[in-house]
């Protein structure tokens, strides 16, 4: 594999890790908001 292949793999991994956690966090926040809204109602 060329150096650019490794660089692409590395940046792919970094962005997937960060974006993946951001998506997970978005779902956790939505769940918390849902629970909170239910409780307030």
């Amino acid at each position, binding site marked *: 594999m060329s*150096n650019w292949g*490794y660089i692409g793999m590395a940046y792919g991994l970094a962005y997937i890790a960060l974006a993946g956690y951001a998506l997970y966090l978005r779902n956790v926040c939505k769940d918390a908001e849902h629970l*909170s809204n239910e409780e307030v109602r």
Partner: protein
Amino acid sequence: MKTWLANYPVRPRWLRILGWSVFAFFVATQAIAWKISPPDRDMGHLEKILYVHVPGAWVSFVAFTCVFVASIMYLITRDIKHDLFAASAAEIGTVLTGMTLGLGSIWGRPTWGVWWTWDPRILTYTVLLLIFISYLALRSFVDDEDRRARWSAAVGIIGFLDVPIVYMSVKWWRTLHQMQSTPSTIAREYIIGMDLNAFAFLFIFLYFVIARYRAARVMHAVESRREDAALGVGEAMHV
């Protein structure tokens, strides 16, 4: 409690603005680092991997330091807020550690010729990852809130002891992993990219930890309120 929940939005407007600002800053710092850094004499363009690998490692240390401090605070005060903060920081620290190890492995293949080697730096950092995976697993296994918080605090404090070992490993033992670079050992065009990305990762961590902590507090408050209602206990302030 209802009033508290109504006045404590999980993602207030300022947090959303912070999130988008952090994202924009991260995109900008990545672009700047790529634009200004020339290929390294030995590594060529592979040095660009270090703009995500090194900041990821630095900020994972910040995350586990937060776990350490919050765990001590919990044991002193027994305030559940500290436990929730420690758990939030541990979760993000674990993601960053896993990411950093993966990036190191990808960088190591073309430069060292191997994906993995039993190097003290890599080994101690892998142990750190395993400790905090165990920390998160422990939290999901223990139902009793007080016990979970106490045990987690113990693991968080003991687990943190590996952080200075990871940092010093390249000085204490003969390793394949290079020693820490300092501004005097690397060229200016690499330092700018590295520093900017270190701040970008730090801001990402701050945004993630604030959002995760707020969600954890709301969930904890709702669950406590429901438990109290099920047990017929009067409403308490579990926030």
